[in-house]
């Protein structure tokens, strides 16, 4: 990635609220046509970082550049943003919402060019059209002015799998045409939809790269035991990060030797082996 194509850049960005550093020394770059996933626990600083990138919140130190300059009203026109709460006006109709956003961004929007699902409910209040269509409306409003950079905060929470796949179809189509995309999600399956990931914890970036790079050689121990309930119990009581898939137990951030000792002490025979960690398990071990 070269500086020439960077749509958004954050350099050593820090944001403090009183003594609390919500974001600390974070660097970030989003290029044309790439989909960047911003992941991390609640309170890790993702939304604060996004708000600084959009120019909605001042940095305490460091710098943010959008399209090669400081965030401003002019750069805002080149951005599309779908916030977690969707950001559409519940007490305006679908048509009024579309016209309002189009006017604000100087876009030319026609009802005929809108998805069929929205045209059907054109004269209904946005607050009364159901969450699925409201999400469609929020995307239509954010995309109508053909933004160069699209920022999506938790775009798919509560969406069924087919609607989610279609939404990602749209996102990737925009990326294929050169739009840069920054997306946050708790749905780690969606990390597979991203070209690159940035993982934050406690205000800092703790990992970055492709999914394979982030997971790296992080390993998880797999435990198979006839009396899986007793094995599961003994390992959870030891305060370990234990997960259960069917009857297969996995323990992140541990070693075969450590688990063998705990299971021996509890008198539970089990087979142990190391396997590559999932992204979820990797993130659990990255938080400190």
């Amino acid at each position, binding site marked *: 990635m070269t500086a020439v194509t960077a749509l958004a850049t954050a350099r050593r960005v820090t944001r403090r609220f009183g003594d609390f550093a919500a974001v600390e020394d974070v660097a970030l770059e989003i290029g044309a046509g790439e989909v960047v996933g911003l992941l*991390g626990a609640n309170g890790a600083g993702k939304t604060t970082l996004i708000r600084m990138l959009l120019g909605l919140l001042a940095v305490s130190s460091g710098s943010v550049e959008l399209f090669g300059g400081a965030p401003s009203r002019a750069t805002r026109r080149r951005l599309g943003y779908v916030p977690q709460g969707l950001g559409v006006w519940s007490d305006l109709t679908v048509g009024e919402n579309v016209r309002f956003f189009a006017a604000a961004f100087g876009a030319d929007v026609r009802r005929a060019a809108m998805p069929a699902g929205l045209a059907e409910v054109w004269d209904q209040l946005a607050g009364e059209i159901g969450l699925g269509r409201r999400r469609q409306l929020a995307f239509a409003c954010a995309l109508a002015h053909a933004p160069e950079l699209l920022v999506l905060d938790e775009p798919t929470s509560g969406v069924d799998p087919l609607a989610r796949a279609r939404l990602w179809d749209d996102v990737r189509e925009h990326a294929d045409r050169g739009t840069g995309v920054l997306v946050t999600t708790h749905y780690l*399956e969606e990390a597979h939809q991203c070209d690159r990931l940035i993982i934050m914890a406690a205000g800092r970036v703790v990992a970055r790269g492709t999914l394979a790079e982030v997971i790296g050689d992080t390993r998880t121990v797999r435990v198979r035991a006839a009396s899986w309930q007793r094995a599961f119990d003994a390992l959870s009581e030891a305060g370990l990060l234990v997960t259960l898939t069917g009857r297969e137990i996995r323990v992140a951030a541990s070693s075969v030797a450590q688990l063998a000792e705990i299971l021996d002490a509890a008198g539970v025979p089990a087979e142990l082996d190391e396997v590559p960690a999932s992204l979820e398990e990797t993130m659990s071990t990255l938080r400190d």
Partner: protein
Amino acid sequence: MTTFGVAGVDVEFGSRRALTDVSLEVPGGRVTAVVGGDGAGKSTLLRCLVGLIEPAVGTVRRPRKAQIGYMPSTSGTWRELSVRENIEFVAHAHGIAGAKLAARSGQLLDRAGLSGVSDRLAGQLSGGMRQKLGFCLAMLHDPELLVLDEPSTGVDAVSRVELWRLIAQAAAHGTAVVMATTYLDEGERAAYVLVLDRGRELVAGEPTAVLSAMDGSITQVARPGAPDWAWRRGGAFHEWRPVPAAGEASAISPDLEDLVIVQMLRREHERRAARR
């Protein structure tokens, strides 16, 4: 172990049908997952199971009320009470007090990692911690049937791992656990999964069994040949064909997400064909 559940249930709200002919068994000792998007009927099914809604048609098997633990999607905590007060309030409702209360709440809060915040107001907990408190409240009286409505929605991935551990532990101790979720990977992790779409069963069974029983085949391709039967997974497309894969290198073994998308596409095509 007792099996709870619903059989052939229809639920109607006025003229709107919320559930149509839904059946689900919830046996002790395993986690049963109900998966679907907003409006699929997950909450209605769980509310039917715990007795908050009566079905128009069908039967429900549930234990007596004192043996049901129910965590609503709003977590069921009182924001203006502290963690300790939340526990005490629910304990008194169940007639748990004294040494028994101290032992039970100590054990639950400890497992949930909430021992250090027992004086904090529930409204000041993070989303993940509040969901864990909701779980402790639902489990406090050690019910035979534990019903959790979207315990992990909005909870970050790290807290989700911890919440899932608590849920699995309850099942390991013999409790019949049923949880609603919008996350298919949670469904895949459960012992049994029911996927709902528009109030009807879309997929049901043990995750590995429903995947191996899937007909047709899925290939991973850069550009789909039949866009109507393809969907985006990462940079590539997955495409379903009604015929088995003939040993092509592009054939993949589908996950639950692929399977659910195929079934939803089929329903969509059926609906479209019926309209014509």
